[in-house]
């Protein structure tokens, strides 16, 4: 894998996160390099989404550091993190239901100048990745199906022209046909040059598209390895891939 030689883009070092008195993350460390798809897998409540929320500045860790392209972003507010190039498709999609599809995509580029050639290029790119969004551009996002809303959430995140894309449970609640389609697109996005940090409960699919993976258990990293190695790992197979 050539990507393993890429420079470290995101370095999370021993972060501890609390919700009130609940110790949600007990020292998570992980790295994403240029060109990679890295996946975080684990059961409900293991701390996957909290890790993402810490990275994009929605919830600040009490200790530990997060560095992005060498810069400390541990306590940066969310809008600055977005401006630095980390963009997220949140869990549960969170499209703006009463805005049209196009307006949602425009919101994705909120931090950028509208109407520039780059902006139009990105809109074209999103429409090419998700032709369905072009068809429905003027439709209210709330009236889309779950799979289409997921596509919209991902497209919206891409409109920020991210240097790192965070995807939180993109397959959640989708029909199997859509799940496969979504993962194909994740691979395509990555092939076009955007590194992806992918949080997934669907460990099987996630490990198939990812180059490396971290297994989270109750707020700690239980395993960290190549995706292929994790797929072969007995423990992972039993716990997450549904084999006995």
């Amino acid at each position, binding site marked *: 894998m050539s990507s393993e030689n890429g420079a470290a883009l995101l370095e999370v070092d021993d972060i501890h996160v609390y919700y009130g008195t609940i110790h*949600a993350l007990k020292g998570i460390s992980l790295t994403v390099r240029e060109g990679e798809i890295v996946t975080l897998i684990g059961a*409900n*409540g*293991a*701390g*996957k*989404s*909290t890790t993402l929320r810490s990275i*994009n500045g*929605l919830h600040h860790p009490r200790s530990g550091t997060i560095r992005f392209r060498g810069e400390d972003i541990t306590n940066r*507010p*969310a*809008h600055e993190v*977005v*401006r630095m190039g980390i*963009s*997220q498709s*949140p*869990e*549960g999609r*969170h*499209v*703006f*239901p*009463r*805005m049209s599809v196009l*307006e949602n995509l*425009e*919101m*994705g580029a*909120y*931090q950028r100048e509208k109407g520039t050639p780059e902006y139009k290029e990105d809109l074209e790119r999103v429409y090419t990745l998700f032709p369905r969004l072009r068809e429905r551009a003027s439709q*209210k996002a*709330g*009236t*889309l*199906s779950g799979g289409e809303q997921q596509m919209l959430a991902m497209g*919206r*995140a891409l409109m*920020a022209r991210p240097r790192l894309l965070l995807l939180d449970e993109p397959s959640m609640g989708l029909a199997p046909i859509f799940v496969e389609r979504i993962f194909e697109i994740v691979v395509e996005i990555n092939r076009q040059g955007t590194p992806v940090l992918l949080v997934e409960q669907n460990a099987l699919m996630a490990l198939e598209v990812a180059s490396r993976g971290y297994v989270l258990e109750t707020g700690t990293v239980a395993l960290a390895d190549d995706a292929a190695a994790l797929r072969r790992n007995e423990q992972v197979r039993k716990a997450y891939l549904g084999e006995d």
Partner: protein
Amino acid sequence: MSSQAGSARARAFFGAPERWLPWALVVLALTYPFWFDVPPFSYVTLDVLGLKQDVIISMGVYVMLALGLNIVVGFAGLLDLGYVAFFALGAYTVGWFASDKFSGVSWHFASTAVEGAAGIHLNLWIVMLLLAAVIAAIAGVIIGWPTLRLRGDYLAIVTLGFGEIIPDVFRNADKLPVPTGVQWTPPFLDFSNLNLTNGVRGIRQLDRPGFGEHLDAWTAGRLPERFGPTDLEPWYFTIVVFVAVAIFVIRRLEHSKMGRAWVAVREDEVAASAMGVPLMRTKLWAYGIGAVFGGVVGAYYGSFIGSVFPTSFFFNISIIVLCMVIVGGMGNVYGVILGAVVLQYLNVAGLDKIGRAFNQAFGTNETVFAQYKFLIFGALLVTMMLLRPEGIIPSARRKAEFHEAEEEGAPPAGDLADAHREGS
């Protein structure tokens, strides 16, 4: 069916009402003072409706208030029950900077007051458009900074508290209480004798705006040196200009980047912040701009009435203005204006007129209409909520929000943001 066909025909004849209606209203507003008291028009305007100029002016004041609150409630979705605070602050700003309140000094700046009169007398346009705006904006940020972190009901309760506190402060700021045992006070202020508001006695004889003698002479009194207490025409045109500028500013804001951010925050805070919308800053802008509207029109109102009392700024004003926004149509500028015009008309003249017509028709001597004003408003609001919760002229987006449950394929009603917060 036939009425539909008729309205379609009318549409074809007149064009879309969105096109000509605003211009028709502009013409109406600009010419009103010249024909409202001329028979036969005066039969309708004065005898039947009772639309005297001071009634119209107070309607204009409430249109401004409703437009300002609409930015906070309608655009940004922040339920503010203490809006009267900014209105009061604006009026007191005139009391401080354009009256003989601080009679220890005699500072004048391009003022309409008598030369050499005691007190601070700044030019009233500066006081209204600059000082009142700035002071209200600062107050908005001070109040908003800690409270806008709260959501929904919590924000409503806290703003309600501020709306109650501010008139109380004005009532009691004639003598600031110094705790017993405190020896030290700042040397430049005599704290125990500092009288900011005259308490319940209020501040009287506020200056009135004017254009100075040169403009007066030059325009043959069209722009008078000083607005008179009985000739209401200059006051009328001033508020018309205020409203026109307000509409222009709000329309621009609505379609600006900030306007889009307000919609995003209102629809889904989590998503908005994931898109890089700075939540606090966006909400503070809405709150601050709303406060500026309240402050400016409060200053106008204080100068128009000529005095300010803490009792003029009760909590019920916040509620009435909120009713105007809701009844008219949250988020829609024209709906909000209509709501303010209708409710304030009923408030100051309409109910009275209806009561008199009732008494004449039935030979009774009922006073219920004026006495049960708030009961009638409450009933109107409840009826509105049941029959047309989106308001008389809703904004398309707001309408969709209220009728979501009826649509097919609508998103789940539960608060996704909460689910997200509880999730790992």
